[in-house]
């Protein structure tokens, strides 16, 4: 187990393993995406209250889940880098931030596009919407802080601390719909009793969520593979890799 961890933490081993995993993750993502889109747009019945407009759920909710999931990945990786000084963990945190910001932006934008026809407004300062907007600013602040500090080690530590402090926002986002019962509807799926959604509507939602998770895994590994070459460019294995051209 420890040997395995040690190997995974070594850049050349990570580079090779991620390179082998990438095509499989990509293929699985494409399958889930096609199946989720087909079931969500063609098979799932219209909602009895919202008609066809509810189909935005299949991009909105998975994007919102990803925005929180990636934040936790980023903060955890930052914490690991802070405590154990594992270079790959810091790399993962840095590469995850723009992907997380993208999903947060999408959650906000698609939510706005769903809010206009259903609530009659693009935006309200509801607790859920406001805390999700704060999440976007946390991602942007993280990225800005990293690029503002020149020393890479100081930048990594400062950014990791910012990310860890920002974790407090995650439960606020999750419980905001219960603590301040305003406009955003409460959770449909992520609650302990049975989800209040029929099977034909739930399956495409789960497939889209899985597709987004796999896409995140793909993007993260892909970007880390690129960046690890830059950071390790002085070591022999990078030269070998470049000469072998893969």
């Amino acid at each position, binding site marked *: 187990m420890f040997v395995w961890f040690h190997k995974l933490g070594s850049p050349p081993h990570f580079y090779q393993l991620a390179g082998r995993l990438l095509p499989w993750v990509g293929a699985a993502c494409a399958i889930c995406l096609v199946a989720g889109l087909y079931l969500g747009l*063609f098979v799932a019945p219209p909602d009895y209250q919202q008609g066809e*407009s509810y189909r935005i759920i299949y991009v909105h909710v998975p994007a919102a889940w990803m925005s929180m999931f990636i934040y936790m990945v980023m903060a955890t990786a930052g914490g690991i880098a802070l405590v154990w000084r594992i270079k790959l963990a810091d790399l993962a945190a840095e590469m995850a931030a723009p992907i997380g910001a993208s999903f947060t932006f999408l959650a906000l934008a698609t939510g706005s596009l769903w809010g206009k026809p259903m609530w009659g407004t693009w935006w309200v300062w509801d607790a859920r919407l406001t805390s999700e907007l704060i999440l976007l600013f946390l991602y942007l602040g993280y990225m800005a802080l990293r690029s503002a500090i020149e020393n890479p080690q100081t930048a990594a530590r400062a950014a990791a601390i910012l990310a860890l402090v920002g974790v407090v926002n995650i439960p606020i986002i999750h419980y905001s719909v219960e603590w301040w019962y305003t406009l955003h509807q409460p959770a449909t799926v992520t609650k302990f009793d049975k989800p209040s959604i029929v099977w034909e509507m739930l399956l495409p939602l789960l497939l889209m969520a899985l597709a987004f998770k796999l896409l995140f895994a793909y993007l993260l590994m892909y970007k880390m593979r690129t960046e690890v070459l*830059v950071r390790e460019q002085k070591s022999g294995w990078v030269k070998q890799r470049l000469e072998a051209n893969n």
Partner: protein
Amino acid sequence: MREFLEMGGYATYVWTSYGLTFAVLAANLIAARNKRRLVHQQLLRRLQSEEQ
């Protein structure tokens, strides 16, 4: 087909949401690929100049 595209009158909202989502995700993938190409080129060039 036309009925499907109209989305019960919500076409603008539904298709803008889907379009935006795929545009942003595709942009992430394209940016990652371009960055990889650039890094490969730069590192290869450096490697070649070191060897000469």
